[in-house]
């Protein structure tokens, strides 16, 4: 079978040093204004978005930022809208799969998934892209419920950035099929044979609004220096991590500063926002150019 080729002897010394003294190993790079993977301090990793990978989902996206991999799938259901009666609803759930890192299996349950769930939920709802009225089928009788499930398949830093990107990609690819509500209150596909008048009304499915897509950039602070788009290794060395979500229309939608007790300078804050805006342009381009395979 395949055998992984052993590392050359020259590399093994560096590998050993890295394992024994990760801090020192990293700071040596930092002092040179560079990072072990060759990036500059502000350089982000390439991102990719593939749509429609899950045929069973109503829409789906597999996204990567560097090694970090997240898959998002949307399932739609029809529910009776409660309050308000003319809006659909959203349920987000983020899970870290066992696949995502070597530590996952032995780790105790953490608050990471629920933190991510809450952040993604807030990002979606806070954006002007989210229009729950568009999910209404018939006020008071039927509306779409959107179930957005995200699975982190590979965790190598910036999980929030990846989850928000995956969520936006999946929601942007979502199409709502035209449906009718029958007298009996059942929802049927429009133009279905179940309709008695026998006429069909073929329509193009309509998408949710794409305006004001929120996207996130996470930066790490190590030795008072700002590192953009950190890997999981860099996140573990960081004193604190700042995630900035902007909507590409000049609004900051969220700013998370995680890392208890460490202060953040205004300069860093400003830097984070500027970097996030740049990153938004990048990611939005990737997002916009992604095409579902069938369309």
């Amino acid at each position, binding site marked *: 079978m395949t055998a992984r080729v052993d590392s050359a002897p020259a590399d093994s010394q560096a590998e050993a040093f890295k394992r024994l003294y990760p801090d020192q190993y990293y700071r040596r790079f930092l002092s040179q204004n560079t990072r072990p993977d060759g990036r500059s301090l502000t350089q982000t990793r390439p991102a990719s978005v593939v749509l429609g990978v899950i*045929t*069973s*989902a*109503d829409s789906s996206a597999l996204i990567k930022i560097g090694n970090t991999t997240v898959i998002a799938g949307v399932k*739609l*259901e*029809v529910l009776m809208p409660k309050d308000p009666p003319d809006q659909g609803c959203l349920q987000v759930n983020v899970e870290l799969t066992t696949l995502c890192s070597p530590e996952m299996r032995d780790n105790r349950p953490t608050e990471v998934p629920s933190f991510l769930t809450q952040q993604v939920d807030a990002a979606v709802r806070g954006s002007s892209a989210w229009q729950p009225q568009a999910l209404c089928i018939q006020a008071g009788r039927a509306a779409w419920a959107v179930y957005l499930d995200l699975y982190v398949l590979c965790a190598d830093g910036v999980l929030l950035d990846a989850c928000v990107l995956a969520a936006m990609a999946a929601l942007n690819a979502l199409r709502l*099929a035209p*449906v009718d509500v029958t*007298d009996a209150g*059942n*929802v*049927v*596909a429009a*133009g*279905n*044979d179940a309709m*008695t*008048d026998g006429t*069909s009304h*073929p329509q*193009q499915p309509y998408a949710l609004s794409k305006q004001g897509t929120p996207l996130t950039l996470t930066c790490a602070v190590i030795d008072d220096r700002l590192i953009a788009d950190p890997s999981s290794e860099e996140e573990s060395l960081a004193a604190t991590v700042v995630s900035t979500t902007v909507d590409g229309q000049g609004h900051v939608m969220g700013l998370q500063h995680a890392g208890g007790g460490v202060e953040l300078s205004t300069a860093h804050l400003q830097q984070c926002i500027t970097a996030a805006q740049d990153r938004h342009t990048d990611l939005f381009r990737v997002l916009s150019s992604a095409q579902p395979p*069938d369309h």
Partner: protein
Amino acid sequence: MLQRKQFVKKTKKGGVVKVVREHYLRDDISSGTPLDPESDPAVNKLSRDASHYLVADTNVALHQLDFLEHSAIEDVIITSVVLEEVRHQNQSAYQRLRTLTAASDRRFFVFSNEHHRDTYITALPGESPNDRNDRAIRVAAKWYDTRMPPSMPVIFLTNDADNLRKAQEDGLRAMTVQGYAQMRKDTPELVDLVAAGVTAEKENLASDSQGGKGAKRKRIYEDHRPTAAITAGIKRGIYHQGTLRAGRAQEGRLVCDSLADEVLIRGRVALNRALDGDVVAVELLPEEEWTGDGQKTPRQAPSPGTEENGDEAAAGGDGDDNQVQVAPGEHLEDDAWASTGGKRPQAKVVGIIKRNWRSRGYAGSLQPPREGQNRAGATSWLVVPVEKRFPFIRIQTRQADALMDKRIVVVIDGWEADSMFPQGHYVRTLGVIGDKDTETEVLLLENDINTAPFSPAVHACVPPLPWAVSEAHLQDPRREDLRGLPICSVDPPGCKDIDDALHIRDLPNGNMELGVHIADVTNFLLPGTAMDDEAARRGTTVYLVQRRIDMLPKPLTEDICSLRANVDRLAFSVLWELTLDGELVGCRFTKSVIRSRAAFTYAEAQARIDDARMTDELSEGLRKMNAYAKKRRAARAAAGALQLASPEVKFEIDTETQNPMDVAMYQIRDTNQMVEEMMLMANVTVAEVTLRAFPACALLRRHPVPAPRQFEPLQQVAAATGVSIDVSSSKALSDSLDGAVRMGDAYFNTLIRILATRCMTQALYFNSGQHAESEYVHYGLAAPLYTHFTSPIRRYADVLVHRVLAATLDLAPLPPSMRDAAGLKAVVDNLNVRHRNAQMAGRASVELHTLIFFHERIVLADARITKVRSKGVIVFIPKYGIEGTIHLTPKAEDGSEPPAEYTMDEQKQTIRHCDGQLALTVFDKVAVKIQIVTGVAHRRSLSLEWMSRDELPESEHME
């Protein structure tokens, strides 16, 4: 041979669940013709020498099956998209189409166009599924057209104007079925088989061809309301939904959940084209329009001058005065109503929610032309259905001369508001009217009885013969070896499917053990097998006078399951312990191995009981059982069980001609009642234990308490003779029946019981989970619980009961299907239908044989009057089990009503001639002359004529 596959994904939005299925396209799909070198010769079906190939669209495949089935139609390409659409719309049409494509002697080829790389298409934006499918068929036709050499034209058959036009635009040779049939000069009868179109364009065509002959025909019926209006109307309570039950073509009844009383629908116009079995929506008429009692159905049909109306009047098709054989449970409720005062709610049909037109067709015969009417060369004919509850059906045929003396099958294609009768078309000929085999085919068709041989898959479930009980059976700890018991069976002569056997013996403790042993059919009939499915569909064995149509394959019915004498057989046994006084002290069930020592007929068993010199174990046992049965019977009667009577006749058949030589009342002996009593006991016991173990899924049999009004006809005639019948409970009724005696008239009581029997409703199978406990009761037997356990060879209900009992005893798990309430309801509903159909078929077979018996024979017989009407009396002839009307005022030659010569006293149930010479009262004895009247082209009917009783030979006198 896997080719490189391209695939497209098909997304189906069914409801709101997204379903994604893969759909592979292939390049190895055969075209089925040797003209295509790439087609696999092993699957080729189309002929190289055909004059053309046909491609049918979906509507042709759905509605023109009789045409397609004709042997002159060959080399037909059926696309898979057509098959799929037909399957969705009509399962039975699909089966017929599949039979055609599977037949090795027909050249029908299935082209899998939906998986062919070159013929698969996706819907265009805005294209409806129907349009897409129509286009797919045209694409497939075009594919053949381009692939075939010019010498092989491909003809596209469609009756849809739009499809026809588009096909022609695509360069296809397209034509309607009608057009094609007319083109086939070689087979002129094809035109008959074309189903009448009921589409708008057909109407246009018709009016075009008729030219100036009046643009629009007069409307006879109200338009049916649109579905949405009906749904809304039902919701608002102005319309009511129910299944129409029609006794005659012009009158129906409806039970609606939304109404307390049954409603009547009288007259053709009110029925508004609804047929028996249709699910309809009705609107109640204002009370002042209810016509109430006794009156003849008013002829509401407008435009009495039309030709069609005249036709029917002449045929007397709606008359109900013809002779009918009446048997238990069956009773002419229309008559009951007609005679019972009081008005019932009346309604009219406003829409038809679900049609129940039979795809198997209706048996009937052409209506002969009236005397003096010259219809030579006519192509439009009315078919008079055998069953009076269906209307006449108009068909187009050019073979009227050949069909006039035949029974034919027709199907209904549609019924327009401007047509008095439904449109249909001829399907096939059954044979000459009156011929025994033909008429047997008729009664099998009318009662939907499947006489097809069992499929190979069913036969595969039958153990090979010779079969014998094996060591494994004897070693099975769940099975007791009861071969030592003195078991015997008692059945009618010639019985081969022996379901039950009996024994009785003394126990060491001084008590007695009584055993009922039932064939262990479920040991062989396993749930979920092809044989089980088939048995559930057939539901019951059907017994005709000279023929038995089995529920299970013959080796099981007559050998492996049958509890024959002197061979080891598997049984399910019920064993009771009785004290010498007949008190039950114990009861148990077990699977067993038995060895019956004798298979007696009722007569043989009776002879052994009666002959005191017979002291062998079996004879002694029969005597003890008989004594015990009598005791039980008396106890049941005391508890209110009804002793009903139903006239049954038996035929003596000429072994050479297979025609009946003599008819006689079936003799009921003590032994019949003894076996019946034992079976009742077993059934009741099994009903109790299975219900206790499975309160929600026991299969029981209930006999609903009849509504008091059902007894009105009985009470009316009884009252005329001074006998009052109390129907407040089955006990009261039973006592009244016992008390209904007249000095010197032994048969009077039987007659009353026969009439009482006719007031009963049918007993029904049901699943205990579906009814309230109060509805479990079996009225006739005065039993709180009842079921059928004792005839699993010939009744599927008993099979289900065996399975539940086995689960009760932990012998086998309860099949999951018994817990599926909806699935079980469907099975049980079918059993009730099959049971009823089997009874009707059996009765129709008796009726047929009676008719044959009286053919070319004039018989005098003693009869009793059962009802008095204004122009005659209805009599029952015990000897032959027939009932019919004696017309005292025959219709005049010209059909006009004769002057009234008789007066009727309804109260006293007496009819008197004006001159006072003759007075006939219900229950009077009269003599009748029975003979067959032959009408046009073999149409025969039984005629009864009043005779003076002096002319009756002494031998025919009844006490």
